[in-house]
């Protein structure tokens, strides 16, 4: 991390959640800005936060609307959305509107921190690409297009490789079906194709394809490649 503390804007109407986030994140070296509603949140945007944690259920505006407004003003700031289980459609919508990731309430602090790191890293990553991606015993050399599990090289079809490449480029971040389909096929909208390629990719790179360790399913939302440790 750089010397200047990362500034996190927490938008949530529940004081206990804000308090929890303040304590947890401050202990991790983050600087916290708090907004109990959409109005304050928009005002605090001028303080140029490095990351926004946004609760979708706000008293004065719908979280998705606020998300759109923020994206309209500042398109690069990473946004992690807090949502509830069962609202998969809301999550997908938030991601499609430009959120970087989501955490399902109730959440553990470790999970939130991981998501925040992934979102921040992705932002940094766009500036300096790293040549070889490693997670567990999987390594992907994006320059030479070589994929290995341990020492064994894995032969991937071009589509499988493209899928893995997109996942690697956004490692740790959830990617919606729509996003992946758009990246890989342009014109296809049926997630079924995606599932077929994910299954094939898993059979090649996972030790146990039924209990994958790298390419993780976010049920109802999309896929996520495990972030480097």
């Amino acid at each position, binding site marked *: 991390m750089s010397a200047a503390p990362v500034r996190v804007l927490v938008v949530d109407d529940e004081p206990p959640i804000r308090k929890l986030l303040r304590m947890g994140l401050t202990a991790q070296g983050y600087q916290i800005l708090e907004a109990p509603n959409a109005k304050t949140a928009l005002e605090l945007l001028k303080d140029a936060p490095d990351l926004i944690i946004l609760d979708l259920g706000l008293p004065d505006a719908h979280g998705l609307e606020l998300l759109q407004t923020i994206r309209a003003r500042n398109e690069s700031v990473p946004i992690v959305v807090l949502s509830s289980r069962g609202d998969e459609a809301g999550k997908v919508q938030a991601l499609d509107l430009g959120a970087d990731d989501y955490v399902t309430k*109730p959440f553990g602090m470790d999970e939130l921190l991981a998501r925040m790191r992934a979102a921040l890293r992705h932002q940094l990553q766009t500036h300096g690409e790293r040549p070889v991606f490693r997670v567990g015993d999987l390594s992907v050399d994006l320059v030479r297009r070589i994929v290995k599990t341990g020492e064994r090289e894995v032969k991937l079809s071009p589509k499988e490789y493209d899928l893995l490449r997109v996942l690697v480029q956004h490692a740790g971040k959830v990617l919606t079906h729509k996003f992946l389909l758009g990246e890989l096929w342009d014109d296809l909208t049926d997630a079924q194709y995606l*599932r077929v390629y994910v299954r094939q990719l898993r059979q090649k790179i996972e030790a146990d394809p039924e209990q994958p360790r790298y390419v993780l399913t976010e049920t109802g939302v999309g896929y996520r490649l495990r972030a480097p440790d």
Partner: protein
Amino acid sequence: MADQRRDSEHRPSPEALLAAAHREESRIGRLRIFVGAAPGVGKTYEMLQQAHARKKDGYDVVVGIVETHGRRETEALLEGLEIVPRQRIEYKGQWLEEMDLDAIIARRPQIVLVDELAHTNAEGSRHPKRYLDVEELMGRGVDVYTTVNIQHIESLNDVVAQITHVRVRETVPDTVFDRADAVELVDLTPDDLIQRLKEGKVYVPRQAERALEHFFSPANLTALRELALRRTAERVDEQLLTEMQARAIQGPWAAGERILVCISDDPRSAGLVRYAKRLADRLHGPWLALYVEGRRSLQLSEEERDRIADTLRLAEALGGEAITLPAVDRQIADDVIRYAQANNVTQIVIGKSARTRWFEILHGSVVHDLVRRSGNISVQVIAGDTLASQPIPKKSVRAAEPDDPVNPQPYMFALLAVALALVCAEVIRPWFGVENVDLVFLTAVVGVAVRLGLWPSLLASVVSSLCYNFFFLPPIYTFTITDPTNIAAFIFFTIVAIIVSTVAARARTQVVAATDRARGTESLYSFSRKLAGAGTLDDVLWATAYQTALMLKVRVVLLLPEHGSIAVKAGYPPEDILDDADIAAAKWAWENDRAAGRGSDTLPGAKRLFLPMHTGRGAIGVMGIDSDKPGPMLTPDQRRLLDALRDQGALAIERVKLVEDMDRVERAAETERLRSALLTSISHDLKTPLAAVLGAAGALRDLREKLSEAERLDLLGTIIDESERLNRFIANLLDMTKLESGAISPNVGLHDLGEIVGSALRRAGRILSHHKVELELAPDLPMLELDAVLFEQVLFNLLDNAAKYAPAETTIRIQSWRSGSSVCLCVLDEGGGIPSTDLDHIFDKFYRAQKTDQVRAGTGLGLAISRGFVEAMHGTIVAANRTDRSGAAFTISLPIPQARQNLEAAA
């Protein structure tokens, strides 16, 4: 009936209390009748004076109708009282004024004055009789003051006619009089009345002047006055009786007198019935009118049948019980005595026979038989009065004349049979001789009697004897007989032929009657069987309408109450629109529980006749019938059949409604059970993890320094685990709510089963940390149409369940294989399995196995949700015990998508 009222114990009889309560609480208006012995005694005057007194007391009094007949004293009294304007009704080009019933109802006074209760309304009014108007007003909660002269009381009609030789056509049923809350006698001595008449103070219509001159004789007036006094006294007696019953005063009540009056087709039966009514009133006993349907009943003309039905109805109108019995014995008297004894009758009233001596010898005399065999039952033989043979005025529904003219066909056949016998006789004469050919004719007579009935066989008898004489008795071909032996033979032949034909015809009549009765019973039975089979209200209504329409050849509509009114619910042929007149008649029939519409007393202008349908518990609906036939629709037989059909239909409707009520109660009980289970579940399952979290957090805060690092971590672990449990519980509650509110609409797409299994395992990772998981998924499983989120939840719940019931360190196995056109997925654990008694209920809400020994942490919702979700995805889920070892096995079966099956079939 009244004998039930006579309760020997010292407590108010329920019926008396009910009657009083009914009067006092159901806002039925009270009726005060001012009774006078004759016109001119001052009833209207007295009524108006009391009206003024009430008005002074602050009551809202209006005049509905008062006839002053130009009397100045009376007119003066009208001043200061609000008068509801009369309505004008046009009848045959004449304008008649009548009381405006609707205006009074709209005005809603507390007391309304309605003069001359016995008045007959102009045609076109709602009710033909004014007392019906009064009943409606009372039904609407308005108190009514009215006047009536004693000769208008139905049961006194005969007596008055006897005394005065003037028969009054306008009568008021006794029940109206008896039901009055107060009866006030306006009395004037005959001398005073005659004095007033002379002074011109009594209104006399011109056309009746002469009759009235005779009417107002001192003797008549004295008799009428006595009648009025007596009738009012009887009423006071009744009131006293009611009072005594209500207060349980043990009184000197007559010891169970019970009167039975025998009625026949004799026109004087009506007089008998009225006599029985008065007798019963005097004795304070219940009474009943009995008609025994004997052999002769079948030969009655429709007019006679109608008279019997009318007499029975009169008995009911007068408060008696009307009973019809089929004859069992040869002697009607035996039937009457048997019924009387079975029903504790103390007195039998019967009319003096007007039969000829000859008739009595032939048919026997019921009166004589009755007197001879009655034992300890008194028999009163009443001489009929010819005046009483006037037709009974009131008829609620007019009946149709059955179109049954004398059919000549049987007579033709009878003659044909005799002709045939003649030919036979001619053929056999050479061999058998003249003495035996009469048997051939007798055979023909018997045959005719058995096949065609009495009259054709009598014709055959006569013709046969003539033929016998003409063709066979010498000198032949003449009607003269020379041989005295042959004269005897001829006479005896004639007598035998007539007796044989009578006996055979009687046998036939009985067979026909029995067949008819059997057919009637059979059709009613089949109707009730159809009704019993009908499960829903619609079915019952339809069956009732259809059967009634079929059996009576009429069109039928059925109306049931709905939103405070009634609406058409079924019809045959189907019909759901009634015109305004019909709707009004149907409503009236429903509200007043009486017949209305075509052919009845009320709104006879309607297209249909509406009859209320009721059971012992009250009115249930209204049946409307109509047919294209002009005039009255039903013969008396059909009317009786309709009554039976209506009763059965009403019972069936009530039954279905009761079942529906019971269902509702049961559902309410089930809801109640679930609600209490939910409360128990919430209080336990919500509070347990909360208590653990609170306790652990409290310990961490308060005992921080005294705890070792390991203990602190343990407490923190508890907090996290219990919070997650709480979270799962709440999620389950939410899922259940969604399922029950029908908010689950699966978002299906083609999914890889293995992928969902994987994500479910990942989510259940922490729960399964103490168990081993083994996956056995067939490699070539097709993709399935699933909602991934729902299915993951199903698997998660099953895994959660397995982790809960199987001991730690055992293996949870997930197997999946293809089975025909579906894919099965099975979650097996190594726990104790499911008790067989629980297998049926395990998917029920809030159901938890092994209730007795230990309560596992859980909601009892997980499996219910799983089933709900699986079924939403068109799959099935079953619970079983493992066969290879102990443990539970939950198997989900999901169909392979049709497209995929087609693809495979093509390949």
